[in-house]
């Protein structure tokens, strides 16, 4: 009940991100979502892509250190209070959110997508399902 996020190590210097997106572009990897976390010297770029196998292969070949992490994707109605409702569920289930980021788009313009990195994927998925909130499957994400 999770989707795969690719995290990539980058140095925090001009052109580092550009060089990496260049590798993905050349290999026709489509980005669904992207988020950056940075320190003064280095950063971690987190990606949701249409083809995880292809993306990880080309990144590895290009010498990037990366890891694949299961995260929870949720489609949230693009209305006020949409995110709040999801966080309420996770709070009630005592699931800690390590980080999260959002993206709009795909064919469904009425929804925003949230990616949650949580300590316990199974607990989060179960809590969301019990409250009728649909989590996005890997296949669905690839076909957005």
């Amino acid at each position, binding site marked *: 009940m999770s989707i795969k996020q690719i995290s990539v190590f980058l140095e925090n210097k001009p052109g580092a991100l550009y060089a990496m997106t260049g590798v993905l572009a050349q290999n026709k990897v489509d980005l669904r979502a992207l988020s950056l*976390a940075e320190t003064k010297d280095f950063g971690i770029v987190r990606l949701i892509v249409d083809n995880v196998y292809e993306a990880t292969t080309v990144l590895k070949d290009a010498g990037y250190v990366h890891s694949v992490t299961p995260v929870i994707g949720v489609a949230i109605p693009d209305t006020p209070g949409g995110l709040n409702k999801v966080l309420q569920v996770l709070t009630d289930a005592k699931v800690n959110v390590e980080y999260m980021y959002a993206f709009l788009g795909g064919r469904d313009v009425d929804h925003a997508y949230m990616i949650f990195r949580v300590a316990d994927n199974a607990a989060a998925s179960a809590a969301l399902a019990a409250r009728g909130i649909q989590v996005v499957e890997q296949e669905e994400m690839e076909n957005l």
Partner: protein
Amino acid sequence: MERYYQPEIECASREQIKAWQDERLVKQVKHVWDNVPYYRKKMEAKGLTPDDIKGVDDLHKLPFVTKADLREAYPYGLVAKPLKDCVRIQSTSGTTGKRVVAFYTQHDIDLWEDCCARAIVAAGGSNEDVCQVSYGYGLFTGGPGLNGGSHKVGCLTVPTSSGNTERQIMFIRDLNATILCCTPSYAAYLGESMKEMGLTPDQIPLKAGIFGAEAWSEEMRQDIQNTLGIKAYDIYGLTELSGPGVAFECSAQSGMHINEDHFIAEIIDPETGEVLPEGSKGELVFTSITKEAFPLLRYRTRDICMLSREKCSCGRTHVKMCKPMGRSDDMLVIRGVNVFPSQIETVLLNHGYPANYQIIVDRVKSTDTLDVQVEMTPEMFTDNLGEIERRQKELVAGLRSMLGLAAKVTLVAPKSIVRSEGKAVRVIDKRKI
């Protein structure tokens, strides 16, 4: 008018110095033969007995002692006196994490402090002076050595130890300190700090400084002399031999007189080990001829140097060594602390990092900086930034405890460290010394 701490020794005739050295060397060789099995084995391996050493002219027959010997014999293997006669240790970092531990009897400490006292008097010190010792106290020899020397001269000694610049400046001004002992880079830093406070050289009571434990240039000397309004003197030493005071500068400020009544100096070819003729450039080798607890015969310092027996205007007759011109190994001196790349490598491997690293040394505002760049690996990587930073902090703490020095750790991209002919360049020293 030049003043001396022990004029009858410091200005003795060459013949007298040679006679002392002959007599003391013969005695020292017998002492280690009788008391240190490690030395006896080394001599036996070369087919030598104490009878083969009749004076300084036979010194070249003896085997060298290296840092590797100190490591192998660690901690007690080279101690030549019963521990009940030893009263102190001092210590410095070794090549692979094991520290060098040197032992002293009370007599050894007395002679060491005499050497430091000679340096203080050569810098113009007397019992009228207030001597602030801003070298670190503790295992490091700088603080204890100059502290003892300052007592012997009769200076009012201010044992501030290193660090806390504000307090250093307060004592210099409030107590009217006239002599400052510290590393040259710290002296430069103190000078800059006082300049920023708006103090001019004539408002600073200092008149002389005794600066050592790291390399410094003639330009740096001029800078320090100008900002502090003092005469700046160099001092040389190694923990293995005693500490600071193995050699010191006089009023001529053109090289350091080696205390030849305690240490015999040789210059050798670092490749072949052959003794080079006087005036040649090569590796400095010392034999301590008066040390009781921790005598070293032909200890290879790895410092590249030249000796000069030219007559000195100060009247001292002991041979002079130039400022060390480099190293015949990869040791770095950073903020006065000896650092070997292999120590850094050990810490990295212990923390699960790869041996893909680079050490960048620089000097920013008179202070040495150490940046250890490490390549990120798949094993070390996680999507959790906090976790990576936590490991980075652990590594910084590990380096601090190994080196006794604050280092910065920078994580860099894989394969970003320059390799020449497949071999990584481990050290980039950007300091202009």
